[in-house]
């Protein structure tokens, strides 16, 4: 249940629909399904197996496979921590918008409200501008919530997810029922579902699909290894992994109907085509949705409040699951109590999140998400597959997983981990690096791309290697 809660989050309701829209709606769905079955599910089975087998956090699990691999475990635990820094900022925005929805504070121009009144956005990523007080207050609320849930450990996580998994799912159903009954909804859904086979030749669509599957399910982030390490020795690995991945994909697929029906309604209300709405990144949740909410004929405020509560409850269990791998890793390696580790990490996380409260926060958030998801997660997934597939106990893991599972995995699984995922990811990474060099992300200055995109990713690899070297030194 905790793994399902972790997997289902803002990645499904916020990121999936906007990535889907940005990549041509139905053009994205087919690559998404293919990525799910060729990478998401096999990798999730692998991570569940590693966690279940080692019963330790990722750094110790990788170290147990090979002493020289400890860094890969640390790298995988630092990635979700990096994600949490901006993920919590989006949750803080949701928190503020949940309150704004009471009187539809964004008025008739949600875009001006979001960019100028709420975020006080500047002209570029290097221009800091003023601080947004509502975002800081939201950050304090969310980070405090995360600390309260995490410091007591796994037992509390188990209790929290009993509420945070079913509640937003029910809310999403209510919102979808309302959405699909709106005029124009069918055009929105048609845009979402109609496949565009010409998009299959676009490498960016494929990279976005694989990155979305990794981001959403939570693979290549150490999260699932950590959660699987808490499983009982008798727990079924394969079935749990498949159920988690399908529940996650099912929520994304469902959320597509919720969001695209409202997008269709908005396009019909404004008399423009769906592809002309120009939805990008957080605009979907904080501009498009509020605009549509304001246009609703009845109970607009209730609809708005429910939408942001759903986002918050979806997001909270993913947010604390992003901190848990690093907490568990530090607790295990340095013997520092979980309470202390959680307090320190939440304080560091909060301090770093403050970077996104200035006028350039929106630019930095999109930039960091682009680099961490498209390069960080994909690179961790690739390293995991190469290390374990080519130099690790892959065959043994297959036997191990089958021994504790009712549904058995065959030779296809080892072929996917050893050949298919590495080939696809190397190809995507190389092509994407070339693309990013030729056309820098959003035409931002190089210094911004380096400072907030490339350097954080390289820094966590260096820190991971340093921790491993320190461990090796202590042991000798």
């Amino acid at each position, binding site marked *: 249940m905790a793994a399902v809660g972790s997997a289902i989050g803002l990645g499904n309701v916020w990121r999936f629909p906007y990535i889907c829209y940005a990549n041509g709606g*139905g053009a994205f*769905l*087919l690559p998404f*399904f293919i990525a799910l079955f060729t990478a998401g599910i096999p990798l999730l089975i692998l991570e569940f197996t590693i966690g279940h087998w080692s019963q330790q956090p990722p750094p110790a699990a990788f170290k147990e496979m090979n002493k020289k691999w400890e860094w890969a475990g640390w790298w995988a635990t630092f990635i979700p921590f990096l994600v949490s820094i901006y993920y919590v900022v989006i949750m803080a925005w949701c928190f503020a918008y949940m309150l704004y929805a009471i009187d539809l504070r964004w008025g008739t121009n949600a875009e001006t409200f979001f960019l100028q009144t709420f975020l006080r956005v500047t002209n570029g990523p290097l221009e800091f501008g003023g601080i947004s007080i509502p975002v800081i207050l939201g950050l304090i609320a969310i980070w405090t919530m995360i600390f309260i849930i995490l410091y007591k450990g796994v037992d509390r996580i188990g209790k929290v997810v009993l509420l945070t998994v079913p509640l937003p799912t029910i809310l999403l159903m209510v919102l979808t029922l309302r959405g699909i009954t709106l005029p124009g909804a*069918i055009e929105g*859904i*048609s845009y*979402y*579902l*109609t*496949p565009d086979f010409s998009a299959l030749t676009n490498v960016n669509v494929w990279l976005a699909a694989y990155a979305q599957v990794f981001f959403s399910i939570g693979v290549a982030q150490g999260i699932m290894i950590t959660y699987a390490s808490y499983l009982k020795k008798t727990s*079924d690995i394969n*079935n*749990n992994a*498949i*159920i988690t991945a*399908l*529940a996650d*994909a*099912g929520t994304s*697929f469902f959320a597509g109907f919720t969001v695209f029906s409202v997008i269709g309604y908005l396009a019909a209300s404004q008399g423009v085509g769906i592809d002309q709405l120009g939805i990008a990144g957080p605009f979907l949740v904080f501009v498009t949705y509020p605009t549509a909410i304001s246009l609703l004929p009845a109970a607009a405020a209730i609809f708005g409040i429910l939408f942001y509560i759903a986002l918050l409850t979806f997001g909270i269990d993913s947010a604390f699951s992003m901190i848990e791998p690093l907490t568990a890793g530090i607790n295990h390696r340095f013997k520092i109590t979980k309470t202390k580790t959680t307090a320190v990490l939440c304080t560091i996380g909060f301090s770093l999140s403050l970077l996104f409260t200035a006028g350039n926060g929106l630019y930095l958030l999109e930039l960091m998400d682009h680099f961490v998801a498209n390069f960080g997660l994909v690179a961790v997934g690739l390293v995991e597959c190469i290390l374990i597939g080519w130099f690790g106990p892959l065959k043994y893991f297959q036997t191990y997983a089958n021994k504790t599972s*009712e*549904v058995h995995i065959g030779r296809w699984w080892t072929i996917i981990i050893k050949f298919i995922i590495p080939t696809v990811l190397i190809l995507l990474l190389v092509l994407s690096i070339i693309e990013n060099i030729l056309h820098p992300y959003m035409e931002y200055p190089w210094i911004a791309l380096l400072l907030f995109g490339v350097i954080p990713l390289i820094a966590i690899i260096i820190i991971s290697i340093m921790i491993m070297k320190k461990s090796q030194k202590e042991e000798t």
Partner: protein
Amino acid sequence: MLPASALIMFLFGVIVIYGGLAYFLYRAFKGKTK
């Protein structure tokens, strides 16, 4: 009305994702009650 290709994608998603989920949940439930 939805175009035929959209309808096919819808059915594909429903059968593969939700059908698959229902099947594996059933297997898990059956395994637990054995």
